[in-house]
């Protein structure tokens, strides 16, 4: 399988109180076409900074090498509140990606939007609404739909379900699985919930303090961790979820 993303010795340096501080330290990995790679890490480990550096959103302090083999990768964010433009209707939000890039006329755009709505299991009448009129789950579905409009081959999902109710979480995860199977997109799936990562991903990376401390097939990382931090993480998961 070909690579869709190559990251080599990526570091992100910030200046904190006149001292240099590395939020991401020398990270290297590849994402293969069509795979779901999991990134497990707790808050403050640097995963969000890493995603921003990979996508080129992080302007300052990036050192190292990032090569995309996919055009215009997209991102799905954690907080459905800030991820949708509050001043625009859903129809506008979904048309925007293909208005910006892609020469489609109005009819074609409408057709593609309706197509995508079906894929994310929402009904047409949502097009006329504004983001604040939608539930958390609906908003996240729209975020996913918008991210898929340009038919990207690579997507970063940064804690896409953490802000949702438990019952809604499982629906959105099911949706992601379905879309992945249908469209074959590669996904970098970031989460702090180890169960979700195990369920969704084939390969897993564990991040702590800006470094990737463990990487490999999920069976190895979960049941045969080599790094101490990974071991403590897995132990905690065991006691947390099993009586």
């Amino acid at each position, binding site marked *: 399988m070909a690579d869709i993303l190559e990251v080599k010795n990526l570091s992100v340096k910030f200046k904190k109180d006149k001292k240099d501080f590395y939020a991401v330290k020398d990270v290297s990995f590849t994402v293969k076409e069509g795979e779901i790679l999991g990134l497990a890490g*707790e*808050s403050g480990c640097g995963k969000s900074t890493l995603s921003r550096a990979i996508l080129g959103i992080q302007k300052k302090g990036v050192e190292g090498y990032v090569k995309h083999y996919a055009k215009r990768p997209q991102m799905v964010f954690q907080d459905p509140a800030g991820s949708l433009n509050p001043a625009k209707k859903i129809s506008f939000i979904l048309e925007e990606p293909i208005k910006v890039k892609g020469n489609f006329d109005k009819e074609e755009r409408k057709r593609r939007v309706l197509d995508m709505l079906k894929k994310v299991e929402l009904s047409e009448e949502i097009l006329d609404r504004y983001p604040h009129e939608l539930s958390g789950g609906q908003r996240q579905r729209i975020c996913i739909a918008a991210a898929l409009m340009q038919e990207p081959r690579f997507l970063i999902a940064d804690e896409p379900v953490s802000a949702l*109710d*438990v*019952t*809604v*979480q*499982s629906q959105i*995860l099911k949706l992601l699985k379905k879309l992945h199977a249908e469209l074959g997109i590669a996904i970098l799936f970031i989460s*702090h*919930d*180890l*169960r*979700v990562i*195990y*369920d969704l991903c084939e390969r897993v990376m564990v991040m702590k303090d800006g470094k990737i401390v463990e990487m490999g097939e*999920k069976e190895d990382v*979960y049941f045969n961790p080599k790094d101490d931090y990974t071991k*403590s*993480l*897995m*132990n*905690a*998961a*065991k*006691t*947390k*979820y*099993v*009586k």
Partner: protein
Amino acid sequence: MSMLTVKDLCIKVHDRKTTDTLVYDVDLSMDKGDILGIVGESGSGKTMTALAIAGLLSRHDMEKSGQIIFEGINLLEVERKVLRKIQGNEITMVFQEPLNSFNPLKKVGWQVEEGLRVHTVMDKCEMKERAIEALRDVELSNPEAVYNSYPHELSGGMRQRAMIAAAMIIQPKLIIADEPTTALDVTIQAEIVELLKRINKERGTAILFISHDLSLVNTLCENVLVMQNGLVVESGRCENIFNNPKEDYTKKLISAIPKNPFYKG
């Protein structure tokens, strides 16, 4: 007689022209030393119920009806003087976001002593001693340092432990914990749950544990209430609810829990 009995608790909010009922007819009871969980998603009313028992719902436009009987006293009807002796003293609360729950301008030690300052008569030295002891009890390795720190100087886990110390220092009969681990990392979550288990075992303090995480509640509590949209949907012993859910919503909630790769069986 049980320690806490809640009967027919209703909480309504009067907003402009409409009345929203946030909690309908909630019944629950706890004996000394029980650990009870309340599980629900957003809008379920679990936090409102907890706040009502803790006495933090005094807004004039929130109408409460029913009974909250704590050791024979109905907290909804008794006068403020008596209420203040119970709330914050025999019933204490631990919140989700320790950063917001601590005063950023006061040292942690001072805030841990607060319970003693309000409800007992002790001199400064004794209070400090008790506070450091309480901080040690919650497994903080350098209690004197923590005593002298400000909230933002501590990590999330340490802050939450300090909050538990503050709740424990006056030796309450009941601690209400509202999503105490949600804002914490997985490794710390497990430790906090173990800490609460230990406190319950060693001191016999009852714990009312509010969470959206059914699997977490399952590891800590003996009994659980499942709430949805202000109603108690199902209640009973954790094992029974987990292995034999009767209501549709409970089944939905259980099936929504991500499969645990470490759970063999």
